[in-house]
């Protein structure tokens, strides 16, 4: 390889790397049913996980989204993984994608699979959950459910709880 062609290859590699870095992550990471939800939590074993259920039409859900994103950034290195799950109707797929494009959250988001009985999904996630939104569940590093939050997440209190779990080995 001549010096000239070597430079061209290096330049191309830089351009490709820059392109990859700039490429937006897919707004919706996939669809989840109850089994898929359990697999997603299991994959994150070793991390403290906060799952947040939301919908585009839910005002408190939209309001807390930027705070969740900031909390993810603050605690990523320590091992926090936030997972978002939209419960929007299938007919609102475009609205979900538009919302995520605008928000650019620092955590992956899934959409609850349409069809089936919502009660089966709700019960599989958390027996005490009545289906209200937003709803968040905190898991420790072993994947054990620690706490659930009905309604808007009290960020300061939740982060305190999260940091305790992150500090535990």
């Amino acid at each position, binding site marked *: 390889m001549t010096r000239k062609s070597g430079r061209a290859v290096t330049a191309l590699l830089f351009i490709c790397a820059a392109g990859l870095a700039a490429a937006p992550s897919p707004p919706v990471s996939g669809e989840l049913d109850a089994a898929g939800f359990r697999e997603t939590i299991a994959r994150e074993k070793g991390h403290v996980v906060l799952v947040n259920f939301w*919908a585009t039409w839910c005002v*408190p859900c939209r309001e807390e989204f930027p705070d969740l994103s900031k909390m993810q950034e603050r605690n990523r290195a320590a091992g926090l993984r936030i997972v978002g799950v939209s419960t929007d109707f299938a007919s609102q797929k475009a609205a979900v994608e538009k919302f995520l494009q605008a928000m650019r959250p620092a955590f992956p988001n899934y959409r609850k699979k349409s069809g089936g009985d*919502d009660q089966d999904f709700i019960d599989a996630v958390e027996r005490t959950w009545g289906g209200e939104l937003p709803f968040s569940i905190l898991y420790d590093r072993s994947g054990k459910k620690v706490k659930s939050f009905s309604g808007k997440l009290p960020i300061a209190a939740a982060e305190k709880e999260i940091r305790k779990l992150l500090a535990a080995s």
Partner: protein
Amino acid sequence: MRPFRVLLVLALLCAAASALTAESPAIGAAAPDFQLTTVDGKSFSLASEAKSHKAVVVMFISTQCPYSNAYNDRMRDMASAYAAKGVLFAGINSNKTEDAAAALSHAREHGHTFPIMKDPGNKVADAYDAQHTPTVYVIDAQGKVRYEGRIDENSENPKGVTSPDLVNALDSLLAGKPIAKTTTKAFGCSIKRV
């Protein structure tokens, strides 16, 4: 005697604390009574209506929640169909973000002729521990809760309903048969409390 006094104070404190902690009325338990004014200015008493009907369906609803709004036509049709069978449907709007004028205009827009009430301070929602809209309760003529939960399992597609839970509960109650599924769940919008 001093330890007895301490125990008495503790017992009173516990009783007060449990009275302050609302829980959903159990199936078969007395439904919390309430008196409210409908958005078109009439007074409404659950106890009186329960006595004069075979059942009352208390529905926590919203003007803005897509899940509640997905059931607007079903609420209208069921209220009309079951009125002939002696069942009264009643809507309660406990959201602090939706006023009486909005509830009235929403009712007119969707042909809801059943009583609809605002719930100032979400006291009725608290008494029932209702968390989201839509949530429905079936109250029998004795004022007891017989069913709590969703209208059916398919909020998105009325034609695709496979589990018409409220209809099943009402039909069983009216036929004097046990209700097979007395509690159900579905997604919904959190009630916006004060």
